[in-house]
């Protein structure tokens, strides 16, 4: 099914293009709320890419956790801190040009480097089934990666408490 493959290819490239456009938006949009939405879009496109490379579970996690969790957090925060739509507030600081040069240089240097490197490992047969099942992931998470997982758990717990402590309104003294 070369057409389908082609279509999928087109879809993936399209996702990439959209993702990049959205990313630009997320970075440049003066309205934070819009930027947040753009980010959400980027995350979704990336989730799509994940799925396209056979990491469906991760793609789902991406959508659930990021778009559902983190984005919500961000949007709430944006709303909490207010002054969002103030037009007079510049979104960018003055070092944009330098940042752009640096980033541009980075891209212009690494990009050709990537392209020139011809020997990227290739995994044939695009039709090959996903390498990893959710079960596999779960198993290795509970066996091989249980230590980082537990640490992460502790970390998250600490973050939870820490975030509450930091964000909590000071008691009127």
């Amino acid at each position, binding site marked *: 099914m070369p057409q389908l493959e082609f279509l999928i290819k087109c879809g993936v490239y399209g996702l990439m293009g959209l993702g990049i456009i959205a990313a630009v938006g997320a970075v440049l949009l003066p309205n934070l709320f819009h930027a947040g939405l753009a980010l959400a879009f980027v995350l979704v496109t990336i989730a799509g890419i994940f799925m396209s490379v056979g990491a469906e579970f991760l793609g789902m996690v991406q959508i659930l956790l990021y778009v559902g969790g983190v984005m919500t957090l961000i949007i709430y925060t944006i709303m909490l801190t207010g002054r969002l739509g103030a037009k007079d507030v510049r979104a960018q*600081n003055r*070092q944009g040009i330098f940042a752009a040069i640096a*980033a541009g240089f980075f891209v212009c240097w690494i990009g050709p480097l990537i392209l020139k490197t011809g020997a*990227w490992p290739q995994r044939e047969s695009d039709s090959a089934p996903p390498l990893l099942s959710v079960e596999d992931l779960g198993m290795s998470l509970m066996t091989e990666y249980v230590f980082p997982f537990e640490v*992460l758990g502790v970390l998250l717990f600490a973050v939870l408490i820490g*975030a509450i402590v930091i964000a909590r309104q000071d008691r009127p003294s």
Partner: protein
Amino acid sequence: MIIPLEHVLLFSLILFAIGMVGVLTRRNAIGILISIELLLNAVNVNLVCFSRVSEDPMAGQMFAFFVIALAAAAAAVGLAIVVAIYRTRNTVQTDEIQLLKW
């Protein structure tokens, strides 16, 4: 792989660059956080793609998985800090809270 690895890498590179620009230029702290999420995702894309072609596909995915979790944690703490700063200084513009100067 449906598309060549280098294309995905290029994508993540560009994404990373954009995110970087965002981190470097955004005045609003939340904006910076947003840009950081971009960076993290760019990395994630790489991780996942490499896992796809590596001998041990589990490692890459696990890394991505942990990165996502860490990103969530970072976002949570970062946003909490933003809220706290906003409360005390009534702004979240980074160039207005140059506490590190001198």
